[in-house]
């Protein structure tokens, strides 16, 4: 019997391609974002009207100094994508984490304590989710004013419900398990049971949601930049670049496509990272 258990305990799953690819992309992006002021070939704000709409370096008529071409004002697309990553990742990390903390805390309380706590939180979530999210965000930014902090506040205020709902359901399911009854038989207090028994079992769910939320935060930031409600209009953001690129899509596709690809890969990578981490580090084989 001991040998059988030995064998089961010895099972260690490999990190998997999913984790390597998503983690690799995000690590490279984080490095690029941190080092952007040093590795970007040009100032992202520097305009050169004589070098406008230059194609990427491998196409005819390109200037090799501008690897991914320039936009209609002659700004370097590569430098702007790199600097845009700073904004995108900052928003993803800060907004994602704050959303997770607030939403998961409310979800845990509602799911574990039930009763009037649950009624109050659940009805609030229902009402909250009836607001159209993008309009809600635009309204909030209109009230708070543009700026990075406003974007983060808008994401947290809108998206905490996503965590609250899912974590509430998970906390309810875990609360019905006998190990919770067992903690009570052992004389453990309610709050302590929530912190030491329920929370660790909800962490994988919260982790997966967190990485998804980071991807959503990147998209929301891009949407708000797209409608010019992010930080100042010149500042390099992926959404802002996509908005500008849209105007010249027939003359200069690269202004639109490169930030879009960066956005797409980043959102995809965040989602896959969550799944990959859960597969790799969850001690419970499912």
């Amino acid at each position: 019997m001991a040998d059988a258990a030995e064998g089961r305990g010895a099972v260690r799953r490999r990190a998997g391609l999913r984790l390597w690819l998503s983690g690799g992309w995000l690590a490279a992006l984080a490095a690029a974002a941190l080092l952007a002021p040093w590795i970007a070939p040009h100032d992202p704000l520097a305009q050169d009207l004589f070098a406008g709409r230059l194609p990427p370096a491998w196409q005819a008529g390109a200037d090799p100094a501008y690897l991914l071409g320039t936009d209609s004002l002659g700004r370097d697309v590569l430098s702007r994508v790199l600097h845009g990553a700073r904004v995108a990742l900052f928003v993803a990390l800060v907004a994602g984490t704050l959303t997770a903390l607030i939403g998961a805390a409310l979800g845990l309380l509602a799911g574990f304590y039930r009763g009037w706590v649950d009624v109050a939180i659940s009805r609030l979530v229902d009402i909250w989710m009836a607001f159209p999210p993008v309009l809600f965000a635009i309204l909030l930014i209109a009230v708070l004013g543009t700026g990075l902090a406003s974007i983060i506040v808008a994401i947290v205020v809108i998206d905490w419900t996503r965590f609250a709902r899912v974590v509430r359901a998970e906390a309810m399911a875990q609360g019905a398990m006998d190990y919770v009854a067992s903690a009570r038989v052992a004389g453990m207090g309610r709050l302590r049971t929530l912190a030491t028994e329920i929370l660790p079992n909800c962490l994988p769910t919260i982790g997966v949601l967190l990485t998804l939320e980071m991807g959503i935060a990147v998209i929301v930031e891009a949407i708000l930049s797209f409608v010019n409600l992010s930080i100042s209009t010149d500042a390099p953001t992926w959404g802002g670049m996509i908005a500008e690129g849209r105007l010249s899509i027939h003359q200069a596709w690269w202004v639109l496509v490169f930030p879009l690809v960066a956005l797409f890969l980043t959102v995809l990578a965040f989602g896959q990272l969550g799944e990959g981490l859960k597969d790799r580090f969850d001690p419970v084989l499912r």
Partner: protein
Amino acid sequence: MADLYSVTGLHVSLADMTRKPLLGAAPRIGILHGLTFAIGRGEVVGIVGGSGSGKSTLGRALVRLLEPTAGRILFDGQDIAHLPEPALRPLRRRFQMIFQDPLSSLNPRQTVGTILRAPLALHGLPLARAAEALDAVGLPRAHLARYPHELSGGQRQRVGIARAIALRPDFILADEIVSGLDVSSQAQVLALLETLVRDFSLTLAFISHDLSVVRRLCTRIIVLHQGRIVEDAPAARLFDAPKAEYTRMLLSAIPLPDPDQPWD
């Protein structure tokens, strides 16, 4: 005071949420209808009955996982039936429970060591008792570092038993603890319980739907049917001369091995 538990007029009813009107309280369903019995120190009492007879509800009321609607539960002379949780907490060390499904009752994200030490730490007892409890249930101490999913079903149930005895309680409630195990693991766990009852001079209530399991272990048997006690007798007398009709039905439901039965 000879009796560890003395239960009088125990009623339990639960709200029927499926028939709750939009406004106002849900109607209540009676589960236990006025049970009166006592459990003496050192007794091993079997609580048997069919599904829905209220045996698990009775068990959960004894360890105060639920609060009875009416009646008294004297534990060592103190009425615990309506004690609020904070007042109950220091007493909880003295009555423990082993659960039916060890996979559900052991936190999957904690090692056996963490699972065994948490109750000890709560009651300020030496943590070394975790390892001693594993010795007592016949598991190697190396299992302290294992997670529940790394153990077999029988081993998991032993961890559940170790957690209960580590606190050195006066009373243990075992709720259908062998029904999820295969027959050989069942026999091992029952043998282990017999030893532990002797070594730790435990008082044990053993809930089961299976009279043949109870027969081996218990000195006295309480038969429940639809929330009422239909028979309460020493084990030997109950098996030899059952008084209640329902007990006779349960007894006749025990499958007996028939060596002459052909295989086809």
